[in-house]
């Protein structure tokens, strides 16, 4: 889940934003081209309208020129002739405008040519009449008018212009429709664009907020780490103080426990010394029957010798067992010291298998005692295999050793994990440990409760030293007559909390 989020942030966020940006650019390009098209269409519509106006103007100007010419014909007033002439010039200009507008449209150019011909013919007719009037031949001029040729030409011109205007009407309708369509398309595209901008904006805000939240979390974490630094230091100091106290207790215990057998060795050697004197006296007494040691005065000589022999045996026995005990103690200390120096080789360990193997070695003993061993959920760990084997076989062996009489034993081994730590638990329903002894049981050569099971008081001291060296800690919670729970907390990966050498 974490890696997915990281991948999302690393690759998907920029990709998403890039895609969104590209869509925006696309929308912009489409909108721009649509606007351009609409602009063209609008201009075309405007062109059509102005062309219609020009066509209307053409017809009007021709009629005005015609009416100027008629005025002249009737009144022979030169003023009317001027109107006619200027109308003629204007018509030529308007025709030129129309020609430019029709350029590139062959059918319309053809129509225009027809119109121009008609217009030219019309003006020829008008000019001819004007010439006749100028020459004073009014009758002739009237005859020309009477031929109705001028009227016919005018009708044809008018029809041609009307056709053109109708044609232009159609064009205008098509162009207007196109303009409406393209304007509508532009509107749609702009609406889509706005929606996308809003969508991308929301997305961007969400992404920014996410990033901000992540940053905020990191900052909070950092601040709490800083704030915890002091706590961590005080914890470490407490750890060190505890370890120091343990070393002192250890030194005291070792010196005391090694001294005790020495007192015996010396004491009984001295006793032997005394017995030797008694013996010599006894032998001397056998010769002269002189009374010997005060304690043995009343007994017969044979009994006295037997008593001395018994004491001899006792003294030698104590000396031997004391020397053996010292040897055992020294060996135990040596073993502990060797274990404290052994290099750990961390490896991935399937705890279920490891505990299962220990259970197999204990199964015979367990079934003999009617004890059930139940292995629960055990998270894997990266640590030293041998150390873990020693820790758990010691704890399970203890659980099996100190059962509650009359209750079938039940040993449960379970565990749980956090991000960096693994906690294992060995729980039994045995005889339990008095709270006053909860620290003492971890001391070297110290035991608790009734001394009905042989043991040296080394196991738990050894276990705790190993747990410490693995960078963890252990605890016990127990009540007499209810059972005990030994809890071992270790770093998930050896070396992540820092190894501590034990004394």
């Amino acid at each position, binding site marked *: 889940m974490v890696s997915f989020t990281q991948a999302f942030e690393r690759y998907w966020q920029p990709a998403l934003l890039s895609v969104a940006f590209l869509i925006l650019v696309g929308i912009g390009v489409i909108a721009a081209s649509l606007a351009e098209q609409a602009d063209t269409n609008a201009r075309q519509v405007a062109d059509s309208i102005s062309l219609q106006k020009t066509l209307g103007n053409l017809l009007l100007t021709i009629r005005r020129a015609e009416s100027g010419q008629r005025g002249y014909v009737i009144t022979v007033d030169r003023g009317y002739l001027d109107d006619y002439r200027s109308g003629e010039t204007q018509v030529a200009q308007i025709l030129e405008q129309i020609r430019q507008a029709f350029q590139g449209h062959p059918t319309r150019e053809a129509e225009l040519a027809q119109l121009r011909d008609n217009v030219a013919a019309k003006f020829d007719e008008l000019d001819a009449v004007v010439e006749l009037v100028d020459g004073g031949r009014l009758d002739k001029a009237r005859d020309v008018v009477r031929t109705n040729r001028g009227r016919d030409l005018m009708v044809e011109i008018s029809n041609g212009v009307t056709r053109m205007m109708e044609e232009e009407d159609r064009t205008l309708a098509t162009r207007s429709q196109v303009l409406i369509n393209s304007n509508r398309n532009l509107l749609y595209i702009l609406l889509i664009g706005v929606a996308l901008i809003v969508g991308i904006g929301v997305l961007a805000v969400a992404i920014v907020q996410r990033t901000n939240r992540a940053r905020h979390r990191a900052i909070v974490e950092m601040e709490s780490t800083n704030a915890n630094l002091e706590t961590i230091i005080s914890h470490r100091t407490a750890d060190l103080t505890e370890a120091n106290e343990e070393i002192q207790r250890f030194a005291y215990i070792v010196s005391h426990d090694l001294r005790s057998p020495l007192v015996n060795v010396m004491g009984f050697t001295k006793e032997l010394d005394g017995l030797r004197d008694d013996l010599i006296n006894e032998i001397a007494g056998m010769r002269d029957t002189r009374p010997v040691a005060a304690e043995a005065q009343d007994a017969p000589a044979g009994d006295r010798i037997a008593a001395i022999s018994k004491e001899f045996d006792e003294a030698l026995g*104590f000396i031997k067992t004391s020397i053996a005990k010292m040897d055992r103690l020294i060996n135990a200390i040596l073993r502990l010291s060797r274990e404290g120096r052994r290099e750990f080789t961390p490896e991935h360990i399937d705890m279920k298998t490891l505990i299962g193997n220990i259970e197999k070695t204990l199964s015979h003993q367990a079934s003999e005692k009617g004890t059930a061993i139940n292995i629960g959920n055990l998270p894997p760990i990266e640590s030293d295999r041998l150390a873990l084997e020693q820790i758990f076989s010691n704890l399970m062996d203890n659980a099996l050793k100190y059962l509650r009489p009359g209750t079938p034993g039940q040993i449960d081994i379970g565990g749980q994990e956090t991000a960096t730590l693994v906690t294992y638990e060995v729980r039994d329903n045995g005889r339990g440990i008095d709270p006053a002894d909860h620290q003492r049981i971890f001391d070297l050569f110290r035991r608790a409760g009734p001394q009905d099971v042989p043991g040296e008081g080394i196991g738990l001291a050894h276990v705790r030293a190993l747990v410490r060296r693995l960078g963890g800690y252990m605890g016990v919670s127990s009540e007499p007559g209810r059972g005990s729970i030994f809890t071992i907390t270790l770093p998930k990966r050896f070396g992540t909390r820092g190894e501590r050498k034990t004394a």
Partner: protein
Amino acid sequence: MTGSQPVSIVMIEDDEGHARLIEKNIRRAGVSNEILPFTNGTDAVNYLFGADGSAKVSKNRALLILLDLNLPDMTGIDILRRVKSNDILKRVPVVILTTTDDAQEIQRCYDLGCNVYITKPVDYENFAQAIRQLGLFFSVIQVPA
């Protein structure tokens, strides 16, 4: 020892060799009282306080306790504390006889109400002499009945 009832010496000492040496030297001082040896705290506590822990069993006993501090199953200090805080046993003289010569430990024992604190000499000659003197002391000490 004088008194209407012979005093029993409860000797709580885990090292059997030490127990034997102590007994021998007490006897050499002429003390013939019964010595009840216990090699661990649990058995001694059971004897002193009984099964119910009330010490009613010790009501009519005349006792003197010789106590080692380093026991396999509990510390002698725990036994001392229990004895001195029990209404029936609190007047019983307790003699601490141990290898510890730690000043704090000695002070703690006297605070808890121990009557005599003796450090076991490592040197046997001194050890034997100390025990014999202790035996002489026992022979004159008065114990509440």
